């Protein structure tokens, strides 16, 4: 879901940078030192996740993991995702430098939104938590696809055509991520529920 360098127009890029900077500032304030190790692990997983290719669909899709990053970090998802995207751009030429702001918004905003939507539900019973985590993983990828389509729309393309293509080709990812998020959260609930604060 990373948008490549040189695709989007300048106004979209600048608004992306501005919004991402604001989100990162809020995220850094809310990132207390106790959460640093959790942030590091999740950042590393997000970094690696984009290399996992899901070979289904017309275009190329990959795992994102922003659902679980948001669920466990809240607003701190912004700086964590930003750092991971910077490393991906530098090391794998994945995404790009000017488009860093937009890509951060695309990945981190759904993370925060699903945190607010589903965050409280994971403290309830096991089944509720599993269903909520599935929904979290599913919806964060869905929202990311919509944001990709919006960024492309504000640059050039016909919104509904691109939006449907991106969303449909990412449906397998939505399902897989929902399952992964549900599995991780139920595992954590059993083993270390303190992490789910």
């Amino acid at each position, binding site marked *: *879901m*990373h*948008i*490549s*360098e*040189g*695709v*989007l127009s300048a106004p979209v890029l600048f608004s992306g940078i501005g919004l991402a900077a604001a989100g990162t500032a809020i995220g850094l304030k809310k990132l207390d*030192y106790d959460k*640093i*190790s*959790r*942030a*590091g*692990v999740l*950042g*590393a*997983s997000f*970094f*690696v*996740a*984009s*290399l*996992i*290719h899901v*070979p289904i669909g*017309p*275009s*190329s899709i*990959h795992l994102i993991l922003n659902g679980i990053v948001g669920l466990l970090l809240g607003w701190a998802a912004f700086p964590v995702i930003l*750092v*991971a995207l910077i*490393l*991906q751009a530098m*090391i*794998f*030429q*994945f995404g790009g430098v000017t488009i860093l702001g937009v890509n951060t918004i695309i990945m981190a905003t759904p993370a925060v939104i699903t945190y607010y939507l589903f965050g409280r539900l994971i403290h309830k019973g096991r089944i509720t938590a599993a269903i909520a985590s599935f929904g979290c993983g599913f919806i964060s990828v869905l929202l990311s696809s919509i944001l*990709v389509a919006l*960024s*492309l729309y504000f640059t050039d393309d016909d919104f509904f055509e*691109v939006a449907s*293509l*991106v969303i449909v*080709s990412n449906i397998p990812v939505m399902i897989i991520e929902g399952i992964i998020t549900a599995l*991780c959260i139920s*595992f*954590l609930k059993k*083993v*270390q529920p303190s*992490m789910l604060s």
Partner: protein
Amino acid sequence: MKRFLLIFSALFIFTGNLYGHKVIIFAWVEGDKVYTESKFAGGKKVKNGKIEVFNSNGKLLLKGFTNNNGEFSFDTPLKATLDIVLNAGAGHRGKWTLNKEEFFETEEEHPAYKSENNIEKGNSLNRNNLNSETIEITKEELEKVVEKALDKKLAPLKKMVAESMAGRSKFNDIIGGIGYILGLMGIAAYFKFKGEKGSEK
């Protein structure tokens, strides 16, 4: 914490192919045509991708679409450095710069059309006239024949080099990236430690 780490490191199992999320286009010259091939980083061909060819000043020279095999070829519009841009939809973009040196350097117009006819005419004329074993062929014609044969033989080689250049993400790169993240964690933890120590006094 440790078990959490274990779960996420299990994801490493799936990174067997280690391909990034890019779209790649390579282009090479054979005779007076330019051939291009477009793929997603995982190896899947780009079908119906939009191709645009620009000169070094950014002027659009021609455009077209890739076929079901990710290929698109066109007659060389201009023997100069060309920028070939692929747009595979949904924000996937790739570029290949074809340098001037890759084109056969003779006259300005397409020499192949003219010289091919010349070679055939020349050979048949000579055969009829001389009626001997040897066939006269000028130095220029010989050059063109060799050039054409070389292009054909080298095209698959160029493709192989381009593919390996496209850079599959190496395992070392992943370890490096994770190292950076752990380093940042360490720095943050250091400052936390300093803060705690300071407040104790």
